[in-house]
């Protein structure tokens, strides 16, 4: 993921993008303005210090007059206190703004993700989305809040200092200001290259992480193949690249600072020469205090300049992150309820359930054609009539596209032509939430969420009582094993449910599906083998789930296939045969071959367990 994140680095700074992004941060604009105000005050304080030194020299030390030192000290203290207050205020405000912007942008992104269609998820790896929502937004918050502080402070400081110098002595001021553009150019040049250098380092570093990952995961294989030395050689090359890249980047940074300091020293030397000679010549235009103030200004003005260079380089580096976040926010879902539908039934976040019609469960495909983005048509003029309560089995090899039909029924995708009707009404005339609230869905790889068993079952119907949850569990024969868990229904299932076995997760996902008493039931049957006992329980669960519901099953089990009212045989994404089990076997076509193979496989697996346990 890191790699993906680093690749797309754009060269030009895109002001429009940043403006749009800052637009998304609207609730925090007042914070940002407050920060700028504080920074301006802070920059003024910073420029006051050299002036205080000037006064100390000219008024007290050179004149030998001690009167007023107390007041001077008091003024100094006042500036210190103001400055400390400013520092506290902007640290606090920046922290607030950073965290707040993070939260705000993350919430916007997540909400958008809830609306986006599956075609989005098909093209975006989950890891990529996660890193965009976590690290990209974090970087944006940081860059906007702190970058802005630095930028504004640096700008104010440079302007005020330049103005002060010009007021004190025009000629000397011009000497210092003459060096400024040189430093600015050098700073920008270096900062860009330093950032680019570290980007290569990060990229190599993620390759190294990958190499360790492969090295450790594959260690057993490497041992059996006696590949240790070859692997070490390859790794050493990578480690060498890493050293080379790191040294390159480090040397560039090591070069940058001394160059800026040396340029600064030239400016200071010019001031010392010019100012010192003026004092010596007693023209009266320069005092020793002024000279000291100038020297300290001349040294101080260069830090903000390289600061600004760094911020711009930073902005450019963060731009890729900004682009990713903005593109997430501005991606339009492909499947939308029309405004009329939303008007009547509400949207996914504010449903109007009082207007929702009852559902019976007739499903009709009427001249449906469909293709996934840019790929060839997988359904062409397909029609199918399923009466409420019937079971349809989808059969085919792995990867043959059995889930297409399911995706269309769930309205995860929409037909490119024709329509899908539920109870005789086009699904697009009902809200997505209405349809999906009446679906029961069990995945091949059951997906549970961290939390207790109870919470996971309740996911199916949020207002279910504890009794209802237990009843649902009993219906799918899951109650028994749940009670043997350490805390029964209150047992934590772990991340993704990984503290439970696959069979247990499947049972819970059945309970979760039927607690909502859905009219339409979708089942993607698992292929993974479970022990005989769990297998029997799963059969019960399936039977319970199908009873009285219109069901679509991506089927792997012989018993499920045989019991279906209708079988759709799918090959290379297309429906090639259709009919009942008996009639399809008679055809001796593709289904026949699939069935024979399946029969053998399942036979071997199940019978071996059976024989071994006998």
């Amino acid at each position: 993921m890191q790699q993906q994140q680093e690749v797309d680095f754009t060269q030009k700074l895109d002001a429009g993008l940043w403006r749009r992004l800052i637009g998304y941060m609207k609730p925090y604009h007042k914070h940002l303005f407050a920060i700028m105000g504080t920074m301006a005050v802070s920059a003024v304080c910073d420029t006051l210090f050299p002036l205080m030194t000037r006064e100390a020299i000219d008024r007290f030390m050179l004149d030998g007059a001690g009167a007023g030192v107390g007041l001077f000290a008091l003024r100094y203290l006042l500036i210190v206190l103001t400055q400390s207050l400013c520092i506290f205020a902007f640290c606090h405000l920046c922290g607030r703004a950073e965290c707040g912007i993070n939260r705000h942008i993350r919430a916007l992104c997540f909400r958008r993700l809830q609306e986006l269609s599956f075609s989005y998820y098909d093209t975006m790896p989950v890891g990529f989305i996660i890193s965009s929502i976590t690290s990209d937004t974090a970087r944006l918050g940081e860059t906007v809040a702190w970058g802005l502080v630095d930028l504004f402070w640096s700008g104010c400081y440079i302007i005020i200092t330049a103005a002060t110098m010009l007021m004190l002595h025009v000629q000397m001021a011009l000497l210092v200001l003459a060096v400024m553009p040189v430093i600015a150019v050098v700073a920008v040049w270096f900062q860009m290259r330093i950032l680019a250098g570290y980007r290569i380092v990060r990229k190599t570093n993620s390759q190294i992480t990958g190499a360790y990952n492969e090295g450790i995961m594959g260690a057993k294989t490497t041992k059996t193949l006696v590949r240790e030395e070859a692997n070490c050689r390859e790794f050493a090359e990578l480690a060498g690249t890493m050293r080379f890249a790191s040294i390159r980047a480090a040397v560039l940074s090591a070069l940058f600072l001394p160059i800026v300091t040396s340029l600064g020293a030239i400016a200071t030397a010019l001031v010392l020469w010019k100012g010192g000679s003026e004092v010596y010549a007693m023209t009266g235009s320069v005092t020793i205090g002024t000279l000291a103030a100038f020297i300290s200004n001349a040294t101080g003005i260069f830090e903000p300049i390289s600061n600004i260079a760094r911020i711009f380089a930073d902005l450019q580096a963060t731009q890729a992150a900004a682009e990713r976040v903005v593109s997430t926010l501005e991606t339009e879902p492909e499947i939308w309820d029309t405004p009329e539908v939303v008007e009547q039934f509400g949207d996914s976040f504010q449903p109007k359930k009082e207007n929702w019609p009852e559902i019976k469960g007739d499903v009709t495909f009427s001249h449906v054609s469909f293709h996934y983005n840019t790929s060839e048509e997988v359904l062409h003029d397909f029609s199918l009539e399923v009466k409420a309560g019937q079971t349809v089995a989808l059969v085919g090899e792995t990867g043959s596209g059995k889930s297409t039909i399911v995706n269309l029924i769930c309205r995860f995708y929409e037909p490119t032509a024709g329509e899908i009707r539920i109870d005789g009404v086009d699904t697009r005339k009902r809200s997505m939430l209405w349809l999906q609230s009446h679906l029961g869905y069990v995945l091949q790889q059951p997906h549970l969420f961290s939390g207790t068993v109870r919470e996971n079952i309740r996911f199916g119907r949020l207002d279910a009582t504890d009794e209802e949850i237990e009843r649902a569990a009993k219906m799918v024969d899951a109650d028994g094993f749940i009670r043997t868990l350490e805390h029964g229904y209150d047992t934590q299932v772990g991340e993704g449910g990984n503290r439970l076995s696959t069979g247990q997760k499947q049972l819970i996902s059945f309970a979760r599906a039927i607690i909502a008493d859905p009219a339409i039931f979708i089942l993607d049957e698992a292929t993974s083998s479970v022990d005989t006992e769990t297998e029997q329980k799963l059969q019960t669960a399936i039977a319970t789930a199908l009873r009285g519901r219109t069901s679509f099953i991506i089927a792997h089990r012989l018993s499920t296939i045989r019991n279906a009212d209708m079988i759709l045989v799918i090959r290379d994404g297309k429906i090639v045969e259709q009919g009942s089990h008996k009639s399809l076997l008679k055809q001796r076509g593709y289904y026949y071959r699939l069935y024979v193979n399946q029969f053998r496989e399942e036979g071997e697996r199940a019978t071996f367990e059976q024989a071994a346990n006998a």
Partner: protein
Amino acid sequence: MQSKPTSKGLLRRFSALMQGSRSKYLGSMFAVLVAVLVSFVTPLLFAGTVDAVSNVLSGTPSVSVNLPQPFRAFYDARGGEAYLAAHIVSVAGILILINLIGGLFQYLRGKWSAEASEMIAERMRNRLYAHLLSMDFAYHAKAETGDLIQRCTLDVETVRRFLASQVSEVFRTVVMIVMALTLMSRIHVGLTLISLILIPPLFGLALWFFHWVQKLFAEADEADGKLSAMLQESLTGVRVVRAFARQQYESERFGQRIDDVHDKSVRVSKVMAVYWSCSDMLSMLQTGLTLIFGIRFALRGEISTGDVLVFVSYISMLIWPIRQLGRILSDFGKCKVSLGRIYDILDAPSETDTHGASPADLYQDIEFRNVSFGYDAEKPVLKNVSFRVKAGQTVAILGATGSGKSSMMHLLQRLFEPTDGEIRIGDRPLYTIDKKYLRTRVGYVMQEPFLYSRSIRDNIAITQPNALMADVERIADVTASSEFIGEFEKGYDTMVGERGVTLSGGQKQRVAIARTLLRQNDILILDDSLSAVDTETDRAIRMALVKEREHGGRTPTTFIISHRITTLADADLILVLEDGGIRQMGTHSQLIHTPGLYSRVYRIQTALEDELQRETA
């Protein structure tokens, strides 16, 4: 895991790591010294000039300038302050010159310390990698990948950063303090004391704060981790969320997580705001104190104007490094922990071989004599296993999960050693045969094989990097891999794994068999390695194998683990393993007539075939 290293051991380890880069390291320290010296001279030059000019103006120029040697000698020889004030351009020249020298050494410091620390980091990375691969099978069977990777990457980075910048930063700070103290106390002891009065509380504040804030950071990180976990779960389960229409519910859950992250991070930033403002206030007050008392001492004539400026400069130069020092010292603990975690790996023993082990002819009869084995002594996995096969024969093994089949095969590659009994190949005990040699001649295909993330071609040729493409293609044909490889757009150049396609279990198994067969084997082990291909392909591959043997002339002694009767039936010897012991032994025709697991499985599988015949008739 190992015990924590003592400080002494830690030092030894550091110095061992620095082997070969010590001169660079010392060089960078020297460069620090020069750079600091130069930075301290600059204010002195200003001070000398200011004093000279003001003395000349007030009509009391001294014959000796207020400059350090050798500059003082230079100006004194030419007439002292009067000369200097008239030739300020010379001071400006010196200023530029020494700053260039300082800049050069500043650069050298960065360059040398980067070179030294990167060399150390490279060595650590290579050693860790090599050591991980050298560890025995048992270590990897138990290893936690995520944790190990973290040690090899993040912990190495912590140590590297410590060596690259933090050590020399500490050194620089100490040098600065010593130098400042020396120079300042030579000018005015009273003002020196006043100038340092707020330094200890400042340092203490930094030390205490950074130590303490780490806990808050850790809490914020934890909240971050929970957020990522929640996202991961919710996004991988997006189908479930949609199918149950739980968008609103998920948004609320996400809202809780980001609120948590927000609150924890705001707390950190609040504390940071207090710290920064307090420590900045102390710093500014310190500068102010120095200035005000400087004025007092100057009025009393105890100190020159220039000297006050020197004090003010020195203090502002010192304050920042001292505040950083607090941070570095509190980081030191982290480095120590990281180094300990790295050495936990490096100190774990590597796999060793029997003393005097040597290659041997492996195409010989194989005999198991009363072999027992267990991962821990209490629970034996294999009990008293004895059997004998002739060179070139095929042995099939049937047994339930956990019956010890795979362990028996691990012993043949010496991935583990028997706890009792002996395995002999010909007249050589197995443990006297060189491990590496043994493993290059015994082909072992596992049930869930690991493929490297490189092209399919490279994966097959991994055992023989110089293999001809024709050989790779031929072996892909034999293992029925060429069909699915041909379906990929890039064919044999298709990348496998993270950066490429994900192969199915059956496809992986076929590639794994191919890579093993590409090499000459004396013994071949197929550890349930056809379980994920269908029965027909299984048969086709085995047929092709037989043909291949006839081609190559010599048949490796083959061990096949499977639960398909059709796969087992042709073997010269069938072993039925139950509970770690051989329950039955014989050929197919013998075993189907003996009551036991084999005949049970045989009967059920045949009955199923009959049922299929009936149904499809």
